């Protein structure tokens, strides 16, 4: 989780003292972006070109470690495990008479998975003369891919189809520059496919989406030429623009049935690409299939039914979902009780041990006032292409579904945006417990352990923790407005809540996350001004 903090109080103070021979950084407002890692809260102090890693002891005391970053950090990202923070810096080109040393682009990794934060830096000077400003991380944690996002402006000449693949398992990152073949498009989105069983073995694909084609690059062999799937040719009047990409490995025992599914903006067709054996160096080739689903779909997902794999497409405006058999392109329309726009798979993890191999999907983001969420069991019953469709009557429109990890994986937290209520959804019992909030526009943070959800309203000093299992709520009153909440592991093996405040040079309050007690809170100030805590 990233939060941006600026201390107005500190700014005033530093402005008053902002003269003399100190570096300019001390004359700028203290500001930082905050990131929660497994065992640390990392503050990225942009102006000071450093990160400050806060770790907690068993009693909630914070320790700070400061690490310098490269010059001109253009992109940051936290890996999916929440263990590492990545900072991509553009570096600096020293000119004649420049007091600042020449510095190559670099990728800095802050590892917050251990009791003490550590860092490493991967020098990209060997592959980049000018920095790329986009950073994408493979969910498996093995690769980082740098690309030209265009947000920070480009170099004198930029090849937008150039990617740099960094192998994070290699000591030096083994960065490899890849220039994708292009028919005029430029990358707009990068999608990391899960590990796929392809004819050439287990493969990790990077799917690069441009406005007119897809490129499939093997991360395991970035030096191997990619495969391009043109979505339209020069004669086409319109070019379908990808809106969502989903991937399925198919039968793990087979190497010819992995598939990529796509839906498009303002297009009623969905496409599947089956990755089949080929004599090329890649060993596979995508075979496209398109199927009209009767309306512009709002979401797609690969699902398993009693009849095999299907691509499910939600079609707003028709109160229906369409199941597409990717092998035959046959479609089956399923009437839904509401106009759901989003779908999440919530198949129990022990589904493999049950008699049915069919998935269960959660449908949400339906029409206001009627939709709630629905459980869609994709087995087959007599006369209909699903086993059951059960609605949980939530009157508010669900705007996001938060996953719950580890201890309560059979639960989801449903956010309703500014509605002043959120729900804890029990997937097993098919119940939804409403939790009302006095404030609207609250932020929800699910603890990494999955045991609780933290609720706060940015700018207010109230904080609440809700036990996901028991739905017991405990409200806490802190001494300052909360701008960010992070739950991290502490040095005593327990859990510590770190609530950040945008005052006093950035401050924090720590609480025992498992048994929060205001009486035992610890307050820290001036986190960015050295000396504290």
């Amino acid at each position: 989780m990233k939060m941006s903090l600026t201390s107005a109080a500190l700014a005033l103070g530093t402005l008053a003292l902002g003269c003399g021979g100190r570096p300019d950084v001390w004359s700028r407002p203290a500001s930082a972006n905050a990131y929660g890692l497994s065992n640390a809260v990392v503050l990225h102090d942009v102006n000071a070109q450093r990160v400050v890693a806060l770790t907690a002891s068993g009693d909630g005391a914070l320790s700070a470690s400061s690490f310098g970053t490269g010059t001109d950090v253009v992109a940051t990202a936290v890996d999916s495990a929440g263990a590492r923070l990545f900072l991509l810096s553009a570096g600096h080109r020293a000119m004649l008479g420049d007091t600042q040393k020449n510095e190559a682009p670099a990728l800095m990794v802050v590892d917050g998975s251990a009791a003490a934060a550590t860092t490493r830096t991967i020098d990209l000077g060997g592959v980049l003369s000018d920095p790329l400003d986009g950073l994408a991380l493979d969910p498996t944690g093995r690769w980082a891919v740098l690309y030209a996002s265009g947000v920070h402006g480009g170099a004198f000449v930029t090849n937008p189809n150039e990617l740099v693949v960094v192998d994070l398992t290699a000591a030096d990152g083994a960065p490899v520059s890849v220039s994708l073949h292009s028919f005029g498009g430029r990358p707009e989105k990068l999608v990391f496919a899960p590990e796929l069983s392809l004819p050439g073995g287990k493969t990790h694909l990077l799917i690069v989406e441009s406005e007119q084609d897809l490129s499939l690059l093997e991360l395991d062999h970035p030096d191997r030429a990619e495969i391009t799937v043109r979505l339209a040719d020069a004669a086409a009047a319109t070019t379908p623009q990808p809106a969502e990409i989903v991937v399925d490995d198919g039968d793990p025992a087979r190497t010819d049935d992995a598939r990529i599914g796509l839906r498009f903006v303002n297009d009623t067709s969905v496409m599947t690409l089956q990755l089949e054996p080929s004599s090329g160096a890649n060993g596979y080739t995508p075979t496209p299939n398109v199927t009209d689903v009767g309306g512009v779909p709002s979401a797609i997902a690969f699902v398993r039914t009693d009849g095999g794999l299907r691509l499910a497409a939600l079609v707003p405006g028709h109160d229906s979902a369409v199941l597409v058999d990717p092998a035959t392109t046959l479609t089956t329309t399923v009437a839904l009780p509401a106009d759901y726009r989003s779908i999440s798979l919530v198949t129990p993890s022990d589904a493999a041990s049950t008699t049915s191999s069919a998935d269960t999907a959660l449908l949400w983001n339906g029409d206001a006032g009627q939709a709630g969420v629905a459980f869609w069991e994709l087995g087959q019953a007599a006369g209909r292409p699903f086993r059951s469709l059960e609605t949980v009557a939530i009157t508010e429109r669900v705007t996001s579904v938060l996953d719950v990890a580890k201890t309560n994986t059979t639960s989801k937290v449903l956010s309703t945006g500014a509605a002043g209520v959120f729900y804890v959804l029990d997937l097993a019992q098919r119940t939804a417990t409403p939790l009302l909030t006095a404030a609207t526009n609250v932020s929800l943070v699910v603890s990494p352990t999955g045991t609780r959800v933290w609720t706060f309203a940015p700018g207010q000093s109230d904080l609440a923790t809700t036990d996901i299992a028991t739905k017991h709520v405990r409200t806490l009153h802190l001494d300052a407005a909360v701008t960010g909440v992070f739950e991290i592991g502490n040095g005593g093996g327990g859990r510590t809540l770190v609530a950040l405040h945008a005052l006093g040079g950035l401050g924090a309050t720590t609480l025992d996350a498992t048994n929060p007690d205001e009486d035992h809170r610890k307050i820290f100030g001036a986190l960015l001004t050295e000396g504290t805590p």
Partner: protein
Amino acid sequence: MTKPTAMERAGIAGALVLVLSCAASSENSPAGSTGFGGTFGSGNGSADQPSFGGTTGAGGATASSGGSVGSGGAPLPPEQEVESTYEVPVATGHFVWTANATSGRIAYVDATALTVRTVEAGDGPGAMAVVPGTADAVVVLNTLSNDATYLQASGTTLTSRTFSDVAPGSNVWAVSPDGRFAIAWTDARQIANAPSTQGFHEVTIIDLKAAATDAGTKTLAVGYRPASFAFSADSKKAYAVTEDGVSVLSLATEAVVSTVALGADGVTTDVEDTRDVSITPDGRLAVVRRDGSADVRVVDLDAGTHTTLTLSGPVTDVDVSNDGARGVAVARDTGDVAVFTLAGTAPTTATHVAAPTGTIVGQVSLTGSGTTAVLYSNAVASERIVVLTLGAGAPALHIVKLHAAVLSAFPTPDGKFAVVLHPADAPPNAQPTAGAADGGAADAGVVAAAPLPAAVAFSLAPLDGTQPPRIEMADGPIRAVAVSPMSDAALVTVRDDAKAIYGTYLGVFPSLEVKHAPLSSPPIATGVVGGAKRGYVAQQHPDGRITFISLDSGDARTLTGYELGARVVDWSQP
């Protein structure tokens, strides 16, 4: 046989394909006939032999004699053959080829790997034909640019050559057995309301193996409105069956060398009925049948002479074996089945056998091997087919009883099985329609072809009679049948636009197992790619759609948007 079958029109190698037209074919109906029937009523025959077509008028031929089941004096409607109404994809040994007239591209699908590639053809590619030989090759007519493109695939490599100056309006191909010559010609029957002053005489001979410096094309004029083409076995001559007779073309000199009349008196001015002319594969003999005539005329195309075989009644169908060794003619009204040899010379005699009692045989379909023929009639609701065995001894007949009326039958090439199509059950109290369709008096003696009822069921019938046929109700009207060249399977394709029901049934021989594969869009063509052991069903879809059916497992695999598939670029490939 060289009669223009649906298979030849489609150019589908090794597969027997028939696409059933919605409307009745009037191929064998008398010219100028009027009135329509159209009920399954009991007609004038027995109640269990209702007429498919109904009758008009009175008098005329009867269907009673020679051991056949009669109808008591009322004339039966003509036999109706069913033929293709679609331009279809074609299949070579390993690929299915299909033209997109709009995009100007030819997509060719590897039926084993199911990979799709496309190639630019000329302007408005349309009719396509397989070029015989060891390679996967086709020739396609580009109707807007009046040229032709020859394409040959080998693995992932494709070679092509364009031949210009093809006669404008050409819409059909004929290709010589050796794959060297292709003839583009115009089938007038595919042109609506063509005035009689349009003769469609022009045909273009293309030498597909011509040197690069040679244009390779030569346009000639043949007789009035050619109806079919045939080639001599050595590919040195081509024969155009026209309304003026058979135009004989020398492919070596690219010239018309003679025109042989087919009329009864041998005079070219005789009014020719060219709609049932079969030419033996060696190009030597033409076998001619005319509606209402008891004669089968065999014309020696080299000598210009002819012999006549006379049956005991009007000949309703004649067929010639693929090897050209023999022919079979049937006279439905008298139940006369005539078997004659065609070994290089025009026959003067035939062996006659009588259709078994209780059967009516108006059509004959010889199997590929030429040793078995299936005889049946779709002019009456007969639940029987008659199998004619042509061994070394005397021809033998036996009955295969089915469980529904017969519309048509498609024997496997080995002659061991047949796919038989059936209509829905007859309405219980249906009556025959009498009088002309316009309500006026019917023309005496005229029996018109009525629209055939749709086939809604099919049987897989062992022809040796050792195993009862299996009947299967389809979920919609049957539109096409394709029989595997290996004789081990058949595809029966269903299309019901009103109910949006589309699918194909895989029938497996000898187990008679039937598997159903629904389709997601209307089928337009069905075939079998023998080299891949897969059947295919091409379907209507703006991006192109084809479903492949494994003949072993029945598993279906659909490719949609195969022009999209051709836009996949593997940069690792050279």
